[in-house]
């Protein structure tokens, strides 16, 4: 559907690797749909760059721009050669009639975003670090049938440091409830989290 040449002819844009798509704080009213390739979303400060996520084919970037005229909240840079469909708000809503699947894709993308933001808010409201971490893990496990959680994701969503996370989880690794690698945490069983949270 999105590889549709007519659609690409009208809205398509091609970027080389390592090109800036847009910068944080900049105003922009277009949303981008990634047809192929890969981009990184990052928060750039004076002395460092914190990569929030890598996203690729089938996902949107800059999607909030079509609902509000506010500055971009992150910088997006292509990682490899990337093809986009670039829409302005009006163009996008016109497409709803002919390509509802596009709307569904966007709703999906926003739903994910909404859930992440809600989790982030709830974890900020929780003061107990251990509870906060275990609740997040529990939520993640329930959400998807997987036992693997990315460390970078936990620390960025919960707004904690890597050390805080590892310090909290190490005792559980000793009991073999979970296994920590450099990038991920593998949960071996879940009964203990339930007991702990009660």
């Amino acid at each position: 559907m999105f590889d549709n040449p007519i659609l690409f002819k009208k809205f398509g844009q091609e970027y080389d690797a390592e090109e800036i798509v847009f910068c944080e704080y900049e105003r922009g009213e277009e949303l981008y749909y990634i047809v192929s390739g890969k981009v990184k979303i990052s928060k750039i400060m004076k002395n460092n760059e914190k990569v929030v996520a890598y996203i690729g084919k089938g996902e949107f970037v800059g999607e909030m721009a079509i609902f509000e005229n506010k500055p971009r909240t992150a910088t997006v840079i292509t990682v490899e050669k990337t093809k986009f469909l670039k829409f302005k708000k009006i163009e996008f809503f016109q497409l709803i009639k002919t390509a509802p699947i596009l709307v569904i894709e966007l709703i999906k993308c926003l739903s994910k975003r909404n859930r992440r933001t809600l989790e982030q808010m709830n974890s900020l409201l929780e003061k107990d670090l251990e509870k906060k971490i275990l609740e997040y893990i529990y939520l993640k496990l329930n959400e998807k049938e997987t036992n693997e959680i990315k460390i970078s994701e936990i620390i960025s969503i919960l707004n904690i440091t890597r050390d805080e996370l590892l310090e909290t989880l190490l005792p559980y690794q000793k009991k073999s409830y979970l296994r920590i690698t450099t990038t991920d945490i593998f949960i071996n069983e879940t009964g203990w989290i339930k007991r702990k949270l009660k």
Partner: protein
Amino acid sequence: MKLIKVKKDGIIYFENVNDKYIYVIKSGKVILKKEKGMYLVGKFLKNFRELKAGDAFGFEEVLTDTKRGNRAVALEESEIIYFEKEEFSNVLKNNTKLGERILNSISNRIRNLNDKIKHISNENICEDSKKIKDIYLYFLKNGDFQKANKVLERMKLDKENLEFVERETKSTHIIKEGNITEQTIKKLKENYIKYDEEILESILIGLNKKIFKKKLQENIIYELIKLFKQKDEKEYITKIEKSLNEFVESDYGKKLRYELISYYEKENQLPKALKIANDLLDQKLEEKEIEEARKRIAELSLKIEEVEKNV
């Protein structure tokens, strides 16, 4: 697509179950309840969210293949349409308003949540133009001058930054030419030293990552160290002491040794000053320089003698 009638307090689905339907309220009211965690409703934190006729629910989990994150209960007698994911696009085709309504509702929720998060975490909202300058500085520091330049081009679109962009484009075009010499660095210093040392520092840090000619690199490090002279003298001296041995191909090492001598002399640490002056003689020096160094050594020795006499 099917329609069900639900009585008051009737449960449409439970939390934590897999359920493949998307729901739209035809009439009545539905409440989404959470056992754990809160919703942000308007400005208030609540563990439930109320929906009315025309609202859709349950699509978030269905589209993202997750279990129900809440429980849906009818608040009053309600009529609810439900359908599977595969039918969603047909439903939207026939009802474009529903698509817009869903999109607007989620994006509103996200926006309010973001504001709340900023509020809770006390995140400072800085001046926009200052922050985009941070991105510019970051690329300069990484030696990624091409991207830095792209940031400038983007800033140009925002008319408030015009003056800054113009000045920067003028000052940094000499880096873009690629052939960087000591002359380039001198020019950069002249351009920046008065109005923005932070940018100068960032450019030098960036160049240091990109330049591999030893002599030029020494020049860059020297200028970087010099930037500390006015800002923080102690830091300046520490930096000199740490990097002295890095200067092998240029005269900058000698210059910095003289800086150290003057500093220790001023601080009345004469033996230290004398030692550094003696070290100078171990460097490759021209006759004139040897003479100068000897003169300095003699001066310092005399001073030390005088001090000892007084004691």
